[in-house]
């Protein structure tokens, strides 16, 4: 048997093989030799510190995928931005588009609506904003705003209220032709999302 041959090969072989086991009688009784005895303490700890640091790094690296998986998945992100053909919206008309799960108003404003909005630029309002800041330069007839009232999220309807804009039936907020809050409990103007004209007929939202 391999083992027997080895054991008979002599104490030096056995001793080399079992260098890590100081196999003498007093150790066998279990007296724990002082681990610091004869060792440089900083070298003793380095391996443990390095191991624990590696473990912490590994734990962080494995934790990230488990956290990121709850972020929107690729198919949801694909619908994060949409392209919309504005030729379908006639003057004075409004289209409601579903974007990121919520309604979006795309309105082709008449000249009268634009004029009314600009005229009220300096009027006192809860969330002062110039009409020009809410549209793209040279395309002021296109107003694109989120279709949720900034109060508690209901969808306002166009043509109600005394400012010629939107009226929210839930608690009576009134918006003007620029989507700015003029009356009622809503705190801020209708949200203008990030958008850009990719051509004269197409707008990319989001």
């Amino acid at each position, binding site marked *: 048997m*391999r083992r027997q041959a080895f054991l008979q090969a002599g104490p030096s072989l056995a001793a080399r093989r079992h260098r890590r086991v100081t196999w003498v009688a007093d150790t066998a009784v279990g007296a724990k030799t002082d681990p610091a005895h004869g060792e440089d303490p900083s070298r003793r700890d380095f391996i443990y510190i390095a191991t624990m640091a590696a*473990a912490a790094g590994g734990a962080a690296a494995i934790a990230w995928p488990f956290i990121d998986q709850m972020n929107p998945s690729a198919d949801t992100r*694909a619908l994060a931005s949409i392209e919309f053909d504005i030729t379908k919206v006639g003057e004075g008309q409004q289209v409601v588009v579903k974007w990121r799960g919520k309604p979006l108003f795309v309105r082709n404003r008449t000249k009268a609506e634009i004029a009314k909005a600009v005229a009220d630029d300096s009027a006192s309002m809860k969330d002062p904003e110039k009409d020009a800041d809410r549209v793209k330069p040279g395309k002021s007839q296109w107003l694109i705003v989120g279709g949720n009232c900034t109060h508690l999220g209901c969808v306002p309807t166009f043509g109600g209220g005394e400012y010629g804009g939107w009226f929210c039936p839930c608690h009576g907020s009134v918006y003007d032709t620029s989507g700015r809050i003029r009356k009622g409990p809503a705190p801020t103007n209708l949200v203008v999302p990030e958008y850009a004209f990719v051509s004269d007929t197409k707008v990319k939202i989001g």
Partner: protein
Amino acid sequence: MLRKLSVLAAVAGLLTAGLAGQALASGHPLPAKNLAWSFEGPFGKFDQAQMQRGYKVYREVCSACHAMSLVSFRNLGDKGAPFYNEKYPNSNDNPWVKAIAKDYEVADIDNETGDVIKRPATAADRFPSPFANEAAARASNGGALPPDMSLLAKARTAGPDYIYSILTGYATPPAGLRVEPPSHYNQYMAGDLTSYWSGDHKHVPPGGFIAMAPPLKAGQVTFDDGTPSTVEQQAKDVSAFLMWAAEPKLEERKQTGFAVLIYLLLFAGLLYASYRKVWKNESH
């Protein structure tokens, strides 16, 4: 201990040899041809040019009957995909992807009238199926259902090797083999031809019947990069493309794996060193 392990290994080896011997028994298909693929091995990568050619074969030949409904157009622009371009990290912006999508029509509901209409697809859409449903697919294909290609390369044991073998495995049926149209004889198709064979029963021809007629012809698909369009080339390229379609994350998986294994080897080394240090003066 070692002797026991070697006995075990010998037994296992014998059994595996027995396993391999099965393949050529009568009535079984030929084992799939073994090709070298760029995506094989721990450092495998998809060859973008090959996948673009493969996509063209899919588009011009296969998509007439085969759906790929789990793949979205935007996937074509993802990292590792046929039309990936670094300038467009968001594949939804990739102009090639948008152009490819526009060529397809997908069903949708008209917002105003509520009618079912067809509109050009966008990057976010999935590849449309050529048939409305399974029954329509079978009706158009003599009762056979062309399988969806989204996972075909993983749904067959030999994967892309198998797809390549089938596409190039059509052969003239040997005399004595009764082939019933519309079936075709293919040496790599699973099946037992014993009951169709009137020759020597110890030498039944390998393979089986496939409902699909040989789909590829030389020169049928012109490759934009000038690669000669042989049947073998088309078959190889479309098989590679289908491997991507089945496992788009292959490259990311292998690259992450390499980094993870390096880390784990180092970590195991550190732990072993800690273990030796902790146990240094203790008998085991």
